[in-house]
């Protein structure tokens, strides 16, 4: 049984008396210990779908259908209090901007210890010991002294290490990392991602890694879900998706990025047009206004999600080359 199993999840926004679908009928699962990436452009629903799993959706947002099963529990049926316990212990989240998720006027130590006391029910002294262990584990040198310091004493990379320590406090089975390194420099990004991958390996923790960066996906994830306009349009092993993308959007993303491992003069092939916006209805396939392979049926009928793909005309080696 997978650790996390999401079926037909739909999330909608109610605003000014109208209902807008932000995440549309997505299904996927995460196995124990694996790293699964969610990629897609800004606004494609990566964060909203993950916040739904955490039970942390904003007030105006609501799961309108579907199920989320985690380790045998139906998460949508849990009471708020039960969900809160689960969040500290079994699932935790790391966000992009560590400064806004840490309280600036409390010491790092009290914030880590609070999370340990709450989630593991340890005494103050034991919690302090555990906090020091956790900081060491995430590579913060001189942990005992640093417990007394405040967030502004830490660089961006160090703050992200602290957030990871807090996320690890309850020995979670799943970590959801939403753009954990987007705000960091490349050499620091490499340190943090190597650290997170090592933690998953050592503790058998599963991770949902949300990112825009196709290089990060290739290096750290075993499987990938590509999202577009609130839907998963393609999913599969990282290897298969990079070698033989079947959805035109996935292919377009891969052709859009310049790469260090290719001739620098290889021209980029951008995807035309602008990303789908949930407030502008698009009939048929949501990608059709930007897709180079659109036909009449694409404009009229939304493709179902079948065998890891939502497209009427999956790409093959021949069609990929032809454009």
């Amino acid at each position, binding site marked *: 049984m997978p650790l996390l199993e999401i079926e037909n999840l739909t999330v909608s926004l109610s605003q000014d008396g109208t209902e807008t679908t932000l995440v549309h009928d997505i299904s996927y699962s995460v196995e124990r210990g694996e790293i699964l990436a969610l990629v897609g452009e800004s606004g494609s629903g990566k964060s909203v779908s993950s916040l739904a799993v955490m039970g942390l959706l904003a007030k105006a947002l609501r799961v309108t259908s579907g199920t989320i099963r985690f380790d045998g529990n139906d998460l949508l049926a849990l009471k708020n209090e039960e969900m809160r316990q689960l969040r500290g212990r079994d699932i935790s989240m790391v966000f992009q901007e560590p400064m806004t998720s840490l309280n600036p006027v409390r010491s790092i130590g009290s914030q880590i210890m609070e999370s340990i006391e709450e989630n593991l029910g340890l005494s103050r002294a034991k919690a302090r010991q555990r906090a020091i262990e956790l900081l060491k584990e995430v590579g913060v040198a001189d942990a005992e002294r640093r417990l007394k310091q405040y967030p502004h004493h830490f660089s961006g990379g160090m703050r992200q290490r602290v957030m990871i320590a807090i996320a690890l406090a309850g020995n979670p089975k799943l970590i959801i990392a939403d753009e954990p390194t987007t705000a960091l420099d490349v050499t*620091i990004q490499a340190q943090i991602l190597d650290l997170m991958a090592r933690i998953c390996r050592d503790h058998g923790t599963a991770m949902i890694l949300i990112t825009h960066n196709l290089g990060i996906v290739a290096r750290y994830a075993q499987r990938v879900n590509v999202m577009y306009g609130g839907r998963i349009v393609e999913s599969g092993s990282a290897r298969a998706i*990079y070698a033989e993308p079947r959805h035109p959007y996935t292919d377009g993303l891969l052709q859009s990025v*310049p790469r260090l491992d290719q001739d620098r003069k290889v021209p980029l092939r951008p995807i035309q047009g602008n990303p789908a916006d949930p407030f502008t209805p698009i009939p048929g396939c949501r990608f059709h206004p930007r897709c180079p392979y659109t036909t009449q049926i694409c404009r009229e009928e939304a493709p179902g999600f079948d065998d890891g793909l939502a497209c009427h005309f999956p790409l093959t080696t021949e069609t990929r080359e032809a454009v």
Partner: protein
Amino acid sequence: MSALLRIEDLSVHFPIRKGLLQRQVAEVRAVEQVTLSLNRGEAFGLVGESGCGKTTLARTVLRLVDPTSGEIWFDGKNVSGLKGKSLAPYRKQVAAIFQDPFSSLNPRMTAGKILSEVLYVHRYEGSIPGRVAELLSLCGLAPRFADLYPHEMSGGQRQRVGIARALALDPELIVCDEAVSALDVSIQAQIINLLEELRAKFGLTYLFIGHDLSVVRHLCDRLAVMYLGRIVETGTSEELFSSPRHPYTKALIDAVPAPDPDDDNTNKHGALAGEIPSPLNPPPGCVFHTRCPVAMDHCKSTVPPLSQLGGHHAAACFAVEPSQDAQR
């Protein structure tokens, strides 16, 4: 080839003042002894991690920040001391595109108004509405965009307006500071292609600042790598990426994961340890010595000079042997 822009031994320090008397207690050494030259018509890249001084260098070239020492020469004229009215011709020749098109465009003006304002202020001599229409179309925006406000556009469309504004006065040099960094990859590729097209069409020169090495390599003929205010290595894109010589450049390239699950070259030498020191208190000697895997004793006290390695290639590191060609 003639140099369009020459930056000579440029330093920019910001005083940190404290107390009632506003006495200077320290200084941030944002840019330290930088020498660079950009040839007419080339795209020159500047890369480095946040806080290393890229934006400060850009703003100094744009004459928005005064140099502490050193000179800036543009088209054979020393522009570092120009003030007020005497800067007007320079302001027409040098334009800028910034990272966040949202904060750099006036939210209360339509795209058409934003563009006509620049033309009006600089007393454009032709038809202003005609030029606005031309600029929009050059940047791939339909005429209806003239009537839209920034918040009614997507990030990519706003960046196109930013580019149109930069092009308005027919500049020779455009300083692009993280101009594509905030955009989604599919849109980023559109804007990169647009920048390339415009450069070819108008013979523009770019100073292109970015932290995404793959993007800078794709766009730029030559580039410089900065660390804590200093240039540590410079060369053509080919030289720098196929044979980086400075340990920092090597680590930087090494840290970029390739979009290929079968590539295991990333961090093959291990991720670079340690944090970037503060420019408020830069390390003595080689600024990189606190993180350098091959640092030697004298690196801690002596600043390595930028030495020529042959071709356009130069690096500031004691561990780098000058190549054969450079000695000849």
